[in-house]
């Protein structure tokens, strides 16, 4: 029996406000509250509220036979908590149905998997905790920021205990192979890989309302018949996309919601089921290994990491940011740690892209790449100064580490010694052993 695996990415960064160089050292608040609130409200109205309601209805209507998976970044969850807590309630309700799986990712939707293994692990842990706290399920499947994947990343993900991961069915990765099977990683053979079906996913995401497309209009039974007409042995169709497709990238007037509502009816009639990534990994066996030496992603035509690390501006910004990582890991100041989280969102680097296609995100608050770079680097300069300000000047990281452990140990020592002193001073005062004192108490 064929099965469709739907997965939606939900993410919004904390956009930075206009931060001029003369603000460096003077102003330590970096975010554009107005536009962040405005954008998340807009998307919630257009997408989160109606789409969540639609999914709830569908799950009810088909009695649990319709299933989807979400990967919601930690930073967008924080924004929802601040600005649209109703959305969180809806997701909680979805979680309760048992037909919705929440996936693990980096808390900040960051590029840490490419730059800093230690940071990567920290963020994944933080995200898993956040999901568990909000939705009561511990994510078992991992999907990286923008489906970025490589053999190296697979090793790290497997080491963190995940058995399944999502990635793009990029042509340079699959070659002649079809994305409609379950694969496993070449570097970590126990890690199963779900590969995105590029054609069907993009048909819905980008071509749905395109009049010039030869297959316009795309209707539910057409899509389902395409799925049904794949060869007999292809049992799995992974449709992975941005949640914004529902209502924002494809506005409600295009009929995207009606299209989605009709999918389960046609699919179930043709004997096609719906599964979550965990179920797929559980029921199916890998047909082979995928070798991916260079990182791939789901973006653009090249399916590589060039939308975030394509030009020297982006590389410098990322280098500078992760150059301070080691020091940040020693910091305990909560505001610094929070800024550290927000500054890592991959979106900031996407805004600096000078590619023509795909250009920077449609939500980019900047006029062009230079503007984005200027603003980010000014913020980062201030941030780096603040981090350095936490420590004495001219001390190397390693030395700092040693000093920090000494300080930590000192605290322990002091506590121990204090206990001893107490114990010792207790004896001569009362002239009785400690045991009796506890008895009295």
């Amino acid at each position, binding site marked *: 029996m064929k099965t469709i695996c739907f997965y939606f990415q939900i993410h919004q960064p904390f956009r930075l406000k206009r931060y001029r*160089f*003369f603000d460096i050292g003077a102003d330590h608040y970096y975010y554009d509250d107005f536009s962040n609130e405005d954008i998340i409200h807009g998307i919630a109205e257009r997408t989160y509220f109606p789409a969540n309601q639609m999914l709830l209805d569908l799950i009810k209507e088909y009695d649990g036979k319709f299933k989807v998976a979400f990967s919601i970044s930690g930073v967008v969850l924080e924004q929802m908590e601040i600005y649209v807590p109703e959305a969180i309630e809806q997701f909680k309700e979805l979680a309760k149905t048992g037909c919705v799986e929440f996936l693990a990712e980096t808390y900040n939707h960051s590029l840490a998997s490419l730059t800093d293994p230690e940071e990567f692990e920290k963020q994944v842990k933080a995200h898993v905790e956040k999901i568990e706290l909000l939705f009561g399920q511990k994510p078992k499947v991992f999907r990286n920021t923008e489906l970025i994947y490589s053999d190296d990343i697979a090793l790290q993900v497997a080491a963190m205990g995940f058995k399944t991961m999502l990635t793009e069915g990029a042509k340079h990765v699959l070659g002649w192979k079809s994305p409609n099977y379950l694969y496993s990683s070449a570097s970590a053979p126990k890690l199963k890989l779900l590969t995105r079906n590029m054609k069907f996913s993009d048909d819905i995401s980008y071509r749905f309302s395109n009049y010039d497309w030869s297959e316009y209009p795309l209707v539910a039974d057409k899509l389902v018949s395409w799925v049904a007409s794949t060869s007999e042995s292809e049992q799995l169709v992974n449709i992975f996309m941005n949640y914004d497709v529902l209502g924002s990238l494809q506005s409600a007037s295009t009929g995207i919601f009606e299209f989605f509502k009709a999918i389960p009816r046609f699919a179930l009639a043709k004997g096609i089921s719906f599964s979550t990534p965990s179920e797929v990994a559980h029921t199916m066996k890998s047909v082979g290994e995928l070798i991916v030496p260079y990182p791939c992603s789901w973006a653009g035509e090249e399916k590589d990491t060039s939308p975030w690390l394509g*030009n020297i501006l982006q590389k*410098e910004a990322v280098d500078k940011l992760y150059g301070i990582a080691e020091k940040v890991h020693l910091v305990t100041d909560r505001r610094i740690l929070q800024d550290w989280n927000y500054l890592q969102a991959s979106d900031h680097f996407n805004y600096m892209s000078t590619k023509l296609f795909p250009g920077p995100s449609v939500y980019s608050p900047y006029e062009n790449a230079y503007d984005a*770079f200027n603003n980010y680097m000014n913020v980062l300069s201030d941030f780096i100064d603040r981090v350095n300000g936490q420590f004495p000047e001219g001390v190397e990281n390693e030395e700092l580490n040693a000093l920090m452990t000494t300080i930590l140990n000192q605290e322990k020592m002091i506590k121990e010694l204090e206990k001893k002193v107490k114990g010792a001073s207790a004896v001569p005062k009362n002239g009785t052993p400690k045991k009796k004192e506890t008895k009295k108490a």
Partner: protein
Amino acid sequence: MKALMFGWEFPPHILGGLGTASYGLTKGMALQPDMDITFVMPKPWGDEDRSFLRLIGSCNTPIVRKEVTWDYVKERIGDCMDPQLYFDLRSHIYANFSYFPTNDLGCVGFSGRYPDNLLEEINNYSIVAGVIARTIPCDIIHSHDWLTYPAGIHAKTVTGKPLVIHVHATDFDRSRGKVNPTVYGIEKDGMDHADHILTVSNLTRNIVIEKYHQDPRKVTTVHNAVEPMSPDVAAISSKKGTNDKVVTFLGRITMQKGPEYFVEAAAKVLAKKDNVRFVMAGNGDMMNQMIRLAAQRGISDRFHFTGFMKGTQVYEVLKSSDVYVMPSVSEPFGISPLEAMQCGVPTIISKQSGCAEILDKAIKTDYWDIEAMSDAMYSIITYPSMAEYLQVEGKEEVDRITWEKAGLKVRAIYDQVINK
């Protein structure tokens, strides 16, 4: 295709961007195999590059018949004009101008600059144009900038050939809105008589349509380009003797170029950074005011005025710079940022300049937005990848902007106008 062009400046003796543009455009057009260009200018010096066009000086064109010998003419003006052409022109004198003050060859004098009696010179130029138009056969007449519009109109009346005028600037750019009515009159007259109007940017095109009330269908933008750097210029090395970063303003220090915004932005950067110096290269009526402003902001120790720069000095300054800034309030096109980018200097330009329409690998800010401008300066001198990116990509971009392509666009207009 024979084109008769009227211009005012031609390198190497130039006073502004008009000469550079005239040279680049004619050279680019000469690459078309069937293109035959005759370029008329007020006063040639004899050291102009004549390899791709025929150059006629109005100061060597007779308007009064004087009986002179071949050898005499060759001795007098042989370096600028073929004696045969002199006699051809002489036989096409069309009226009695003997009341004019002329020299021994029957020619009227021109300064070739922008003197106080400019209007008189423009008028004389147009009289001379009548002789030339009667002598040199042409298919189309092309006038560069308002000084030559009357000449173009005259030539059109004489020959009946279509007139194309090329707007390199309007008086609205030069005066920030306080237009000289005489100049406006000449400009408007030229545009009204033209069969087609070429503008150097969409910015100028809009001014021509809105302020001179021209039919948009008659106005086409042909963006300027830049000559590839000559080997001599490429060989010039940086003269920078300091480790400080150098931010440069290069151009006439006049209202149109927005020098005060540069000074204000410099003051903002210097409040934050100490390893940077600012250079204002050029001359102009606002120079003293700028010196005072810099002193008032307390940045004179880091703000330098070089005075007028010419020839290779311009490139020496550019190559010693880390940032080039052109904060023009209204710039019809502005070739100098392109030259800066050729030298690999990261460039900041105002959105109010025509070249911003074709440049992507430069930072664009509003001329009045000194915060954005100073922020961009700071970024280039502080974050190495920003400077490197603009350097490499900017050079690549500007190398693709050639006069040959601009020439083809002009040619398409010629063909369209002639076949109408």
